[in-house]
Each structure stands twice: as C-alpha cells, then as structure tokens.
C-alpha cells in the first residue's frame, strides 16, 4: 500500500480513538505492521500536522498518541464555548445528566468510568443549574459524594417522578471496569499463592 494511504488510516484511527489515544503497539497490531513502521507513520503524520492549514496536532502523552487542537487556536475555541453555552448544556453536561438520571445515586468516579473522561466540570455545571445535587455519601473510606437528580430536574422536564423517564434500550455499561479490576485481582491472587 502507498504511504499516503497508510497515513490516512492512521489519521482515522487516531481521530476515532479520541482522548483515549493509541499506543504504537496498538497501531502496529491493528495495521499488522511492525512497531518500527508504525513509529515512522506517526512521525511523518506529525510533520504533516505542522503545516499552517492544519488545526490539529499529534501529541504523545503517557505513551499514547492522540490528536488535539493546536494551542494557537485556543481563543477561537473559547469563543465557540461562549457562543453556545448560555441557553444550552454542553454534550458533556447532557451525558452526565443522563447517566445520573438513570443510575442515581452515583459517584463521580462511577460516572467517569462510564464516560471515560474527567467529569468534574459538568457536575459543577449541573449542580449550579440545580438539576442535580449531592444526595449522600458512600460508606467507608473516601466517602465520595453520591449524586442524584433534583425536584427541579423533574419540574423542568415535566416529569412527575423518575419512573416517567423513557426507558433506555441499551443498558449503560458497567461491566467493563469491573472486568479489569477482576483481572487485577486474579493476577494478584496468583502472586500471593
């Protein structure tokens, strides 16, 4: 395959992997090439992104590569946020609200596990809009806050109770993180035995 075609595929993979990013090992495995070749592709893409007409750049963070917007465009991103935020909620806030509505009471960490990204700010926004509130604390160490929806939430959406929320078909996944924890535990058991 031509190198330009490969580059396109790498870009697509990086793009879709979002904030999670891709490691060289992953890239090599998906493309069925060596890690050397994968590194070369990454390097060459990196150069392409340096051109002025590109708004994104390829950065390496903690061993994974991910696409991010260029620093120099931040003032426009700021304007973008300002132009949309007054009468609406961000996608992040809406997602967070949905997760809380369907899975309350729930801690911030649990929400972050589902969303895959930090969720401090969306929670703050929702609290400040009185759509959610702290409804308690987890027993034991850490005593993390549990969040739930408010009466204002019900009023705002014209619901009498939470039972009136439309049922959701796809269950919000919770198995994933546990699987990894199990894996850890298994390995750990092996070691002590």
């Amino acid at each position, binding site marked *: 395959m031509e190198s330009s075609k490969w580059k396109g595929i790498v870009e697509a993979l990086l793009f*879709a*992997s*979002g*904030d999670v990013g891709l490691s060289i090992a*992953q890239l090599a495995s998906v493309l069925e090439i060596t890690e050397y070749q994968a590194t070369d592709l990454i390097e060459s893409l990196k150069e392409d992104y340096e051109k002025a007409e590109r708004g994104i750049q390829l950065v390496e963070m903690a061993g994974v590569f991910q696409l991010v917007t260029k620093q120099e465009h931040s003032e426009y991103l700021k304007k973008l*946020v300002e132009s949309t935020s007054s009468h609406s909620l961000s996608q992040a806030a*809406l997602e967070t609200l949905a997760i809380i509505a369907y899975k309350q009471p729930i801690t911030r960490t649990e929400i972050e596990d589902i969303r895959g990204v930090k969720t401090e*700010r969306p929670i703050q926004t929702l609290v400040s809009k009185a759509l959610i509130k702290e409804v308690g604390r987890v027993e034991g160490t850490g005593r993390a806050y549990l969040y739930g929806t408010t009466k204002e939430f019900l009023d705002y959406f014209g619901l009498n109770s939470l039972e009136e929320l439309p049922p959701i078909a796809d269950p919000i996944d919770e198995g994933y993180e546990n699987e*990894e924890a199990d*894996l850890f535990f298994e390995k750990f058991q092996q070691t002590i035995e």
Partner: protein
Amino acid sequence: MRGLKMSYNIKIDAFEGPMDLLLHLINRLEIDIYDIPMAEITDQYLGYIHTMQHLELDIASEYLVMAATLLAIKSKMLLPKHEEEPIFDAEDEGFEADPRDELVEKLLEYKKYKQAALEFKTLEEERSLMFTRPPSDLSQYAKDALSGPQDLNISLYDMLGALQKLLRRQKLQKPVYTKVTKQELSIDKRMAEILSDLRTTKGSKRFYDLFSEPVKEHIVITFLALLELMKQNDIVVKQDDNFSDIVITAKEGVE
C-alpha cells in the same frame, strides 16, 4: 416434532404481520395486486394460519382479524352485482365499489413504507462505517452562572440524544487490545524482561520508564513483577528524596 416446532418459532419472525404475509403471498403467487383473486389468496392465507395452529404457534390476533376480513371480501365478491343500485358504499356515484379496494389501498400503503424501511437499513449500514469522536472538553473556557434550569433551553430528548451518542461512542472505546494483550504476558516473563532491560542500561532504569505500555494489564504485571524481583532480592529500589525519581537497579550477578 419438537425440534420442528422450535425452528418455526424462530422463523415466524419472517413476517412483520398479516400485511407482510399477504404481500408475500401476492408476490409469490405472481398476482396482480390491483386484481387480487380473492378465493385463491384467502385459501393460501388460511392455509398458513391453519399450519401455524397445527404447529401450536401463538397466532397474533391481527392475523385472525385479517383472515376474517379476507373471508368477508371474498363473500362480497360472490354476491350478484346490481347495475343501478349499488349495494356497497360507493364513494363515487354511479360506480360500484370493488370490495377489494380498501385492502389494496392498505397493502400499497404498507408496501411503500416497507420499501422505505429497506432503504433506511442501507443508510444505517453506510452511516455505521463512519466513526466520530466526542467533542473536546472545553469546560476550562466555560463560565457557570449560578441559576436554576429555567433559562435553559433543553429537552429530555437532548439528554437522551447525548446518552445515545455516548453509548454508541463507548463501543469504540473498549479497544480489542485488552483482549489481545491478555494473552501471555506472565509475571515471570515480565520479570525476565525487566532484568534484561536493566542490563542494557548499565544496570539501572527509572521506575516510570519501565511502564512503557499504556495498557492497564501491562502496568499491573510490571508492578507485580517489580515486587517479586524485590522479594527475590534481584533488584534494588532507591529514591533519594520524596518525589524524586525512583531508580531500579539490578543486583550484580543476577542472571
């Protein structure tokens, strides 16, 4: 017989209802939809219903309603026609309504949407080949004003839509590599790797440099391998100050 029943239970989904079944019969018998031979189609339809009963399948009441409708139309067709005084509710004066009209119209209408559904299926497939990414977290730029929800302009469906996007997206964020790498990285193997790694760098390496793979399993195993190496007295772990780099050194003579 039991096995047969089961397979039919699955296959009954082949039809989306009596309309679907009728359309199928019409197509199969190569019948002109505008001139349906009622006797034939009714026989075929009832044959189907009887077989379902024979197989002791649950027949949705809609199928029975349609059977009754077909029989009614068939019998009306058998009645003698009156030229001057139409006995059926004819919408156009002077013309005798065909008792099949309503059924034909309904079948055509249904067929239209059934075909549209096929096109939707194609669109759905094409769209599923395009992958997206979540919006960047721009919350650092946001200003939160303390206020109730009343100045917001969002609906329950915006929330559901966001959730739907998240759920679709999440499928991508469960990378297969967790499965792939689960294979055979054992603690023993990692211990040997670490020791040989240390040897290539004159015996020491910074702690963090050993965690080169951002895969959780790899990190866990590396950590456990390090603990095991310490226990076996194969490595020395040193940290000069709080928060300074932790340096891992292989003990001399360790193979």
